[in-house]
């Protein structure tokens, strides 16, 4: 796959940004921060109308049949505006895992509803501090799932999950409807991510994949989740950088714009570099989904995008001085989102380790 965008892709990027800019409302986003279980319903409605939920669902299931590149472009725009709708990446991981399995009935039951925006899915892989435990403690016995899975974005509103669990002493991916599942809501510093732990107590579970096939599918889904999230982080980082640049051009101190001071000017240039490296890694990874080194490339995208967003958000606040730490300016939305996106898929340390393991595999 080429790493240059084609015209259709350019159009998706421009059009999705236009829709989001239209709907953007800072006050609404600020209001979401403190309320556990809240999200931006109005914007989500637009997303469904725009067909973003159908984007990466195969055409035979009512989707548009597009891929990771297109999804990444939307994610980048969502990230830029710190939107309060956390369903894009979770839906996609759910879809991918159903596609990886061989349960056609499950696909027919869920994929059209996901595409139409009538249902929300998540992938529940992590437990405790690990985003992908080698031997998951959640266990399926006789088709019943028990155990708890770490907080996942969107979990508080999700209708179904694909869960990384143990079955017959082997790892497995199982499909669970969440109607009766207890969700332990997380009161978070970024509540519109709808974080909740999922606590299963004998929930009916359909096994999609088992053993090594399950592990491979889960790792690939995690990597794809990482790439979509990295695109979101890159978009956030770029936007924080631009906000800092614009402020530095406008704000004066000692008779000149603060952008004229190299401590500000060079810092913004460094952030630009981090953002462009993240973007380049995202583009590279998105184009290599079917290659053997996809997980490796996803790790690179994840690491550089986390660093870019983290640095951009932190420095944008610092460059703003006092005004940057006020509630009402809302720059802290980027600071919060940078942190939540960094933590929700596991720490950078996890991704560093995974990258090196992949690299060792490749060069051994």
């Amino acid at each position, binding site marked *: 796959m080429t790493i240059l965008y084609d015209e259709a892709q350019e159009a998706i990027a421009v059009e999705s940004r236009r829709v989001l800019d239209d709907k953007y409302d800072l006050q609404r986003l600020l209001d979401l921060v*403190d309320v556990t279980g809240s999200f931006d319903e109005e914007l989500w409605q637009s997303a469904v109308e725009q067909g973003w939920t159908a984007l990466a669902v195969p055409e035979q299931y009512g989707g548009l049949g597009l891929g990771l590149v297109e999804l990444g472009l939307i994610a980048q725009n969502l990230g830029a505006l710190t939107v309060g709708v956390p369903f894009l990446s979770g839906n996609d991981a759910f879809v991918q895992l159903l596609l990886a399995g061989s349960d056609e009935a499950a696909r027919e039951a869920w994929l059209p509803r996901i595409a139409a925006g009538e249902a929300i899915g998540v992938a529940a892989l*992590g437990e*405790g*501090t*690990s*985003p992908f*435990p*080698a031997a998951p403690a959640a266990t399926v016995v006789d088709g019943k799932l028990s155990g708890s899975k*770490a*907080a*996942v974005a969107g979990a508080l509103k999700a209708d179904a999950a694909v869960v990384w669990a143990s079955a017959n002493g082997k790892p497995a991916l199982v499909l669970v409807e969440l109607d009766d599942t207890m969700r332990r809501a*997380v*009161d*978070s*510093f*970024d509540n519109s*991510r709808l*974080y909740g732990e999922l606590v299963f107590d004998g929930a009916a579970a359909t096994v999609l994949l088992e053993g090594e096939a399950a592990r491979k599918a889960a790792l690939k889904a995690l990597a794809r989740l990482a790439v979509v999230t990295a695109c979101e982080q890159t978009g956030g980082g770029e936007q924080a950088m631009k906000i800092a640049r614009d402020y530095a051009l406008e704000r*004066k*101190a*000692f*008779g*000149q714009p603060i952008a*004229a*001071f190299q*401590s*500000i000017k060079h810092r913004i240039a460094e952030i630009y570099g981090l953002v462009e490296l993240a973007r380049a890694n995202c583009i590279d990874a998105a184009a290599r989904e079917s290659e053997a080194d996809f997980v490796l490339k996803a790790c690179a995208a994840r690491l550089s995008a986390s660093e870019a967003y*983290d640095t951009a958000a*932190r420095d944008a*606040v*610092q460059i703003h*001085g*006092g005004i*940057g*730490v*006020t*509630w*009402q300016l809302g*720059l*802290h939305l980027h*600071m919060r989102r940078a*942190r*939540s996106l*960094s*933590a*929700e*898929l*596991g*720490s*950078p*340390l*996890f991704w*560093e*380790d995974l990258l090196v393991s992949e690299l060792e595999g490749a060069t051994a």
Partner: protein
Amino acid sequence: MIDLDEFRAKARDWLSTMAGEFGREARRGLSPEQDLALGRRYMAAKYEAGFGGINMPVEFGGRGLSGLHKIVFETEEMEIGFPTVYFGISLGMPIPIIMKFCEDKAWVRERVIAALRGEEIWCQLFSEPAAGSDLAGLRMKAEQDGNGWKLNGQKLWTSHAHLADYGIIVARSDPNVPKHKGLTYFWVDMHAQGVEAKPFELLDHEVVCNEVFFDDVKLTDGQRIGPVGGGFGVALATLMIERYVAGDADGFGPTIPFFVDFARDVELNGRPAIEDGRIRSAIARNYALRNGLRSIRDRAFLMMEAGMEPGPEGSLSKLASVRSRQKLSELAIDLRGAAGLAYDPDAGSKEDWVSSWLSVPTGRIAGGADEMLLNTIAERILGLPQDHRPDKGVPFNQIPA
């Protein structure tokens, strides 16, 4: 004068008897109003016990001990988490300034004692929307008005202004001269006609800072502090007082032992995180940095005790410690992965990583942004040139806004 070790022992004894009524645990769950009221009672008790105004002159109601005695007491006091935050600025800058500059000594004594007992609170009205790091760029207008003055304009970032009874303020009395030269310094009654403090929220919902509007606020000339046009000098003297205030090598965030305990508990790849090289590196590097800051502080204390001027390296404290706190807080949150997403708004920033991380950007800006501190080190200590300043020597009203 009482010997420092003896004083420390006495202070510890007294503080430990107060911990139950006024300490961290007693404050949990209080509303801001209740916490302030508790703070006022604590200040009164402290004053009665002889620990108020430790290094202030006896003639003004203080105890006449050394600055070191004060620092020793406050270091012990900080451990227990008393509600003293409302009185720190009040007693830190405005009170010393009126003691130094105001002529009506009886009035000053009344104010000092009321402030020490927590009955009155003072604020410091310096920054403005267009004057943060560049303090001399301020626009608050002070016009001659009969025998007195009239203030019009806006201040910003004023801590505790909404709780304050008095304030010290710098205003522009002459816009026709270069910006440092046209300022005059006053004290103001925060309850006077035309003063309005509007508190606003910081990113962690904390309500400390205010916008303060002045609309034809009348002052007598007796409220002037220092000469007309000499306000910048008094303002600098005010800021210099901050210099020897005890810093915190942990940047007012969690300590290294706290992180070590955390890193023992949290898992990384199925093992305690503390066994991982990256975590060991973070602990070691931050320990070394903070140990260096503590050593610098201890040396400064010893030099002051010996009657010497401490070295300029004390100016590293805030710069280095707050950055260290920021990075370590981020790492701690990330280490917990999805489990690190929870936030308890009641947790304190010395005991909770998310609280520490959310409030640390304020620390990197308040009391001098990193960039200004680096400039100060570069210019005052190392003799490097000032930045280019197009406003230098230009009459204030001719500087492009």
